[in-house]
């Protein structure tokens, strides 16, 4: 049965053009960097085909939420399958060693940025054991974040963050939700902002990246310090519980991204700072019948009845496209500040479609996410092949 025409769908001609353009740019950016490594080049080519298919499906069908989700979950799986074996190859385990901390060579991730900013400005040093200019050090991460903020705003959390895909992955595993969120207390969606406020202040007092030390659930799939005393066991217990509860179990049961929507302080930070990005998700009040289907389905709790009546998503919106997929009236759409809402699925000819706000946002977001994920997914493909051929995930 053909899928219904959606607000983000494009004509075949436009979809083919956009897909070809995307494939060309991705080929240049992904394959160009691997010219002297044939195996990585081959894995990159496989991933390029995958991204090309996803691009076509998104533009042609308009099911942004559905096909983006496949891309995003693949990215997260690829990240885990490449990062953990890489740690085991280089240091024999997932434990962060004392030498690495002393030599400032722990890889920095974006989640730490809000915490390290104030101490860096006030005291002039980083409270995280990383180098300023190394490959996974401070400045590369800062530039990545700046780029993500300008291009995606909080769309980072549905198109770029290698952690966000993990709870997206679990939220997609079961066909139906087991726990309904009908009686969900929407006050809880302010928790990440409160948590952000507290950890930023706490990190400033303690001069340590307290979120990493105590709470970050993604240490469970990256690296952590080996517990050697009871306090470290408590810290380990906390982050493992948060991972199991908010990244695995609740997304499975509720089919929502509970970690990203109700916990992640970086998500809150990005929601606020990301307002500099000009894209928004708006609701056409004339089409909307206030059925609240979108409120029930938004993975990050970014739509409330109040937001729907105001005609826009909350600032925590990750631009995932799910609400647009499920809205029976096609009333929700990507918009650009200052550009009036469209009132039809038909985009006004080839150029009209190419320069629509949704086209521009999706194209940029997919290109950004595609390039960022390519190394991780390609390496994971190599590891899977190695597992099939040599019986090991490890390449060395």
């Amino acid at each position, binding site marked *: 049965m053909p899928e219904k025409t959606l607000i983000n769908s494009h004509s075949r001609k436009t979809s083919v053009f956009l897909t070809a353009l995307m494939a060309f740019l991705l080929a240049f950016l992904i394959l160009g960097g691997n010219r002297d490594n044939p195996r990585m080049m081959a894995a990159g080519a496989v991933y390029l085909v995958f991204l090309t298919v996803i691009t076509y499906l998104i533009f042609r069908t308009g099911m942004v939420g559905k096909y983006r989700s496949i891309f995003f979950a693949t990215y997260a799986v690829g990240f885990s399958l490449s990062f953990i074996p890489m740690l085991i190859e280089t240091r024999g385990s997932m434990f962060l060693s004392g030498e690495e901390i002393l030599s400032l060579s722990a890889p920095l991730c974006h989640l730490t940025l809000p915490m390290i900013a104030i101490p860096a400005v006030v005291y002039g040093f980083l409270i995280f054991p990383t180098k300023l200019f190394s490959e996974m050090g401070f400045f590369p991460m800062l530039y990545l974040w700046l780029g993500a903020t300008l291009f995606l705003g909080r769309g980072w959390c549905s198109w770029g963050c290698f952690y966000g895909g993990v709870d997206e992955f679990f939220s997609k595993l079961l066909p139906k939700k087991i726990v309904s969120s009908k009686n969900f207390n929407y*006050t809880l969606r*302010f928790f990440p*902002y*409160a*948590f952000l406020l507290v950890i930023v202040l706490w990190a400033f*007092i303690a001069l340590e990246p307290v979120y990493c030390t105590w709470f970050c659930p993604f240490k469970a799939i990256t690296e952590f310090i080996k517990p050697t005393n009871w306090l470290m066991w408590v810290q380990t217990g906390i982050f493992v519980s948060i991972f199991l509860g908010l990244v695995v179990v609740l997304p499975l049961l509720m089919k929502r991204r509970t970690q990203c929507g109700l916990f992640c302080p970086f998500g809150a930070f990005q929601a606020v700072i990301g307002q500099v990005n000009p894209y928004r998700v708006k609701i056409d009040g004339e089409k909307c019948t206030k059925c609240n289907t979108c409120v029930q389905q938004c993975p990050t709790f970014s739509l409330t009845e109040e937001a729907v009546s105001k005609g826009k998503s909350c600032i925590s919106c990750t631009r995932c496209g799910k609400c647009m997929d499920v809205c029976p009236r096609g009333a929700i759409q990507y918009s650009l500040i200052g550009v009036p809402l469209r009132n039809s699925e038909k985009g006004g000819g080839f150029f009209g479609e190419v320069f629509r706000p949704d086209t521009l946002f999706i194209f940029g977001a997919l290109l950004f996410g595609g390039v960022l994920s390519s190394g991780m997914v390609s390496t994971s493909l190599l590891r899977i092949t190695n597992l099939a051929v040599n019986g090991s995930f490890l390449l060395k």
Partner: protein
Amino acid sequence: MIEILPRALFLGLSTGIFCLGTCAPVMAPFMLSEERSAYSEKVKPFLLFTAGRFLAYVLIGALAGWTGGLAGNALTRNLAGISLLLLAMLMVIYGLTTGFPQLRFCRMISPYLGRIRAPFAAGILMGVNLCPPFLIAAADVFVMGSAFNGAAFFMVFFAATTVFLVPFIFLGYLSYLPAVRAVGRLSSLIVGAIYFFIGLNSLAS
């Protein structure tokens, strides 16, 4: 006596940024959580908190100057631990009563909380909780051997460090936004949970 006061002033000004960091997690929820329209209402939590802190400083200053020490390390640690536990409970109760007033527990406890003036109580508990700048100041006072000098030293120290807290008054202006109030209330709960753990840890060690 007069010669010790510039030293208290200098110490307060040079370590005040720590005071800002230490008091901010407690002060911010009080400034953000409740909608207040009049200016006097907006600054009220700040003034109450500051008054509580002032009272604690003067008392501890006098005590430290008089006894020539904070009566031994174990006692100070225990005092800090107990004050943190009480502060934690206060923050949790404040967060619950402002954020979830419909709960039966909150309906019961609200009148009492109003009577003890939560920001004032928090100021006292924060004041007796020995943060690094406070301990440096206390070390100076130990050698004075006079309750009066100790209290005077701490009053000046208090005034100098309070300068750093003044920007918090402006946070009160954000509380007209419902989202900001929700953030303030939830942060009160989070701070309470964290301080509870730190308090327990400090008592246990």
